[in-house]
């Protein structure tokens, strides 16, 4: 009943506390299962990530002053200097869906390519956000189809569909436990498969039967809601199956640092930077161990009014109330870009083949509005970091001359991740064009 354990030798070293694997060329077989898609040329899986922050940027301080390869970094993008050659910037794009609800309509547009859906007097996303769209396509081989995370607690913006949201985990310790706690086996560690797993699988079968019987009694809307519940049960079952298999034999896979249990506010300021850094390390290792290939990090949420270190008022309030060139908003934006870079560097520290995990990933960084002060949908700030294994051109600043549809970026991301799609989005957000300037 219990599978024999593999004891393959893995080369691994530890340097300076950070896990450093010796990069080895990897074959499909080393993943322990067939994976016919979403792979880079050197055999590593492609990953997608979202790094999201609230309240936009200051477009004139975010936009690089020149275009093309080797562009000059703007004031707000200066923190990216150490990652030169590993990211591109897309500006001048416009979210075309109706801006009916400031912050949320443009967030829906840039993340899903679709307009908001009005339900009652409230709004919800009308379709999946890009992370879930991709998780359904490139996330099905791994233990977790996707992982949602937040530095500041919120319900995030990861949507499966209308009123179906994936609230992110904002507690780093709970995130660590979920991925590296019970059941996780390090490749080559010789840990035993938990003998209770087959029993759990039959329990899950029985629960799925319960849901199915209940669905038969319900109206179509509630039946659909329970379909999402079934998805959840199937996901647990899949996770158990993955745990029974030999773990993916990936050289760089190691336990990340276990985070502390609590990150209390300091001077009324939450420890966003500190949480973000440890969450990045955990998520990076989750991907290095091929536990997931899709993640989202909600650094802050739409309309976030959080106090940043050294700043005298809440972020959202400042975007509206601060006069002049908004120096405090600018300082906050720079702090956010620094955190984004910290996040990317955690991915870039993990060697894979001749490059790094970041090279085999693409992380889209964006916000809920282009410019907080006016809730503008024009001139959206978008960073694409990591080339998804060479599928995207790096070190490019593409500035749209005509306010092109921001959904073009989403279509380009899908294509870069092996999805041969003729179009992306819906209604005003629908597009058939990518951003060819960054497509390799």
């Amino acid at each position, binding site marked *: 009943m219990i599978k024999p354990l593999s004891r393959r030798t893995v080369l691994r070293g530890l340097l300076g506390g950070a896990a450093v694997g010796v990069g080895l060329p990897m074959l499909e077989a080393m993943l322990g299962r067939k994976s016919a898609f979403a792979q880079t040329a050197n055999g590593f899986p492609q990953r997608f990530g979202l790094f999201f922050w609230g309240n936009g940027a200051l477009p004139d301080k975010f936009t690089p002053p020149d275009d093309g390869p080797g562009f000059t970094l703007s004031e707000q993008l200066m923190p990216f200097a150490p990652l030169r050659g590993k990211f591109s910037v897309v500006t001048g794009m416009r979210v075309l869906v109706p801006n009916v609800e400031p912050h949320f309509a443009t967030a829906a547009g840039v993340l899903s390519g679709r307009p908001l859906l009005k339900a009652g007097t409230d709004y919800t996303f009308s379709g999946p956000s890009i992370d879930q769209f991709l998780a359904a396509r490139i996330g099905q081989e791994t233990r977790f189809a996707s992982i949602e995370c937040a530095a500041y607690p919120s319900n995030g913006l990861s949507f499966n569909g209308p009123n179906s949201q994936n609230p992110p985990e904002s507690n780093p310790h709970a995130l660590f436990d979920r991925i590296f706690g019970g059941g996780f086996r390090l490749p080559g560690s010789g840990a035993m498969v938990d003998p209770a797993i087959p029993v759990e699988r039959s329990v899950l079968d029985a629960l799925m039967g319960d849901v199915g019987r209940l669905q038969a009694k319900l109206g179509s809307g509630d039946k659909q809601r329970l379909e999402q519940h079934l998805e959840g049960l199937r*996901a647990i079952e899949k996770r158990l199956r993955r745990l029974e298999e030999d773990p993916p034999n990936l050289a760089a896979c190691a336990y990340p640092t276990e985070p502390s249990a609590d990150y209390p506010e300091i001077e009324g300021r939450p420890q966003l930077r500190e949480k973000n850094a440890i969450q990045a390390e955990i998520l990076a290792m989750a991907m290095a161990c091929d536990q997931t290939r899709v993640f989202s990090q909600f650094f802050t949420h739409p309309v976030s009014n959080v106090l940043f270190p050294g700043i005298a008022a809440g972020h959202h309030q400042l975007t509206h109330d601060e006069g002049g060139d908004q120096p405090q908003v600018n300082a906050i934006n720079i702090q956010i870009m620094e955190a984004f870079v910290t996040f990317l560097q955690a991915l870039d520290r993990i060697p894979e083949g001749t490059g790094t995990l970041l090279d085999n990933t693409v992380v889209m960084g964006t916000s809920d509005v282009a410019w907080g002060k006016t809730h503008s949908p024009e001139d959206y700030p978008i960073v694409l970091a990591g080339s998804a294994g060479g599928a995207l051109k790096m070190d490019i600043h593409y500035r749209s001359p005509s306010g092109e549809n921001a959904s073009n970026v989403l279509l380009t991301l899908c294509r870069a991740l092996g999805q041969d799609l003729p179009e992306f989005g819906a209604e005003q957000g629908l597009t058939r064009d990518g951003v060819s300037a960054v497509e390799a």
Partner: protein
Amino acid sequence: MSAFRMLRSVGRSAVGWTPLLTLLACEPGDDAVGAARTRSVVPPDTADAAPDTPDASPPDAETAEAALTPAAPRLARLTHRQYHNAVRDLFGTDIAPPSALEPDTAVEGLRAIGSTVTTLSPRGVEQAYEGAKALADQLLAAEGALPCSPADAADTACLRRIAEALGPRIWRRPLESAEIDALVDAGTRSGAALDTPAAAAHTVLVLLLASPNFLYRVEIGEPDPDAPADAPDARRYTSHEMASRLSFFLWNSVPDTELIDAAARGDLVTEAGLQTQVDRMLASPRVEDGLRNLFAEWLDLYALDELSKDPNVFRHYSADLGPAAREETLLLVKHLFLTEDHDFRDLLLSRTTFVNRRLAAIYNVPSTVDEGFGRIELPADGARVGFLGQVAFLALNAHPTASSATRRGIAVRKRLLCQEVPSPPANLNTAIPEPSADAKTLKERLESHQQNPACAGCHVLIDPPGYGLENFDGIGRFRLQDNGADIDASGEIDGNGFTTPAELAQVVADHPDLMTCAVRTVYAYANGHLPERGEKAELARLQESFEAGGHRIRGLLGAVATSPGFRRVGPIVTEAAEAAGEHP
């Protein structure tokens, strides 16, 4: 301007029916200030479902029930708090509920509505499953939590006793014999596979607690044997479903054994039997849980968990202030509506409140107790009165470093008056001027900002209730000056002026929308959806009884719990009906 397209000009043409929702009618343009007023509309969702008909024949109380078109059933998932209360009431306080559960989402301002429209995410399902396993572990370890301990892995008699004893309480309905058999079989298989008796019982418990029959409230109704001749297909909630509906509405938890027994006797589908149980439930101490949750959702008090202020600006701030402020409001709610039986408007007019030492320091009054909360009377001629004078309202609806007339104004309009506030138009410069010699206080700065007609259209309506509270800073401390200039706390709401915070409280208390908002909110909370067009007459009837009874909250809870709108249910909406464009 695009954001104003949401306005619907549905006039209050008929006299006599209760407006379901009032939409602030912002009027952009040069004449904005003069034209500002409010209008009453039906909720957009129902307005879309049926053409707007003039309300030529307002129903009276006698015909209200006949005019009811009950809403379709909705599957609610247990909220975080309901799950915790259920564990406590099923297993006692020694069994710890899981701390990590899917967070609740408020829709239309209420988690009770969010629970009927949102899904459980894969992560939420995982947490519910892990939670069930952790509960099963505890129940197996606790002395006397189960009716028996399996003697060996094949002790089917004991497994059956566990399923029969706990199943009906956990699933809140009798189990079919096939369901019992399936639980026993699954337990037996696990026991055999792992060769331990505990594994067998563990599986039975996990299957009960991770089941959708526990995690969701399955209330779909049955044909009503007393259906009127003109509506032979009418449906009602079953007696067992009523037990669950009543207990989650009034207690925010699962039914007790007495309610389950009454359900089993069929009492809850009879007038007299229902009234007996509702009276008993409203007299039970458990109603405090229900009342607290109702007001916490209504007044957005759970958001106080995330309250964060700059301690360099507000030296009275610490991380425990938000929860303490919530407790103050909920103790006042308990005092006014449970311990005593006050008019609902006293929530805004009460000089009585309950403070711990931290809140006493903010209010600048002596604390009456060293620990916990003590009752105090605020000065009868002071600025601070009622809920609008409490830290919960003042600090929540403000910025981390400053007050916000706009946020407070919106909260008064939306939460207390059920007025829909349109979103600001896009591409508008929203900056308010920096303090200057001419405009020092926030009010002066906002008023100069209102020289821009595009802003003024809405802000002339949403800021003034907040002007009346500018005497309280961003954490709720009283102040006479803002930025070195005297504060002018005058303003007006829908034509009624005020000059002090206390006068503002009186204006809000006298606003007719406050009363309709109370009925609408309690009805929506009880049923898990905004009132629909077919429930308009029902709402009017409840409104009448609320006003006739002197605006008593306990009376309103009882009236809603026994109302046809709470007891009757529409047909299940199938795919076929939906495809044919039918609406319940």
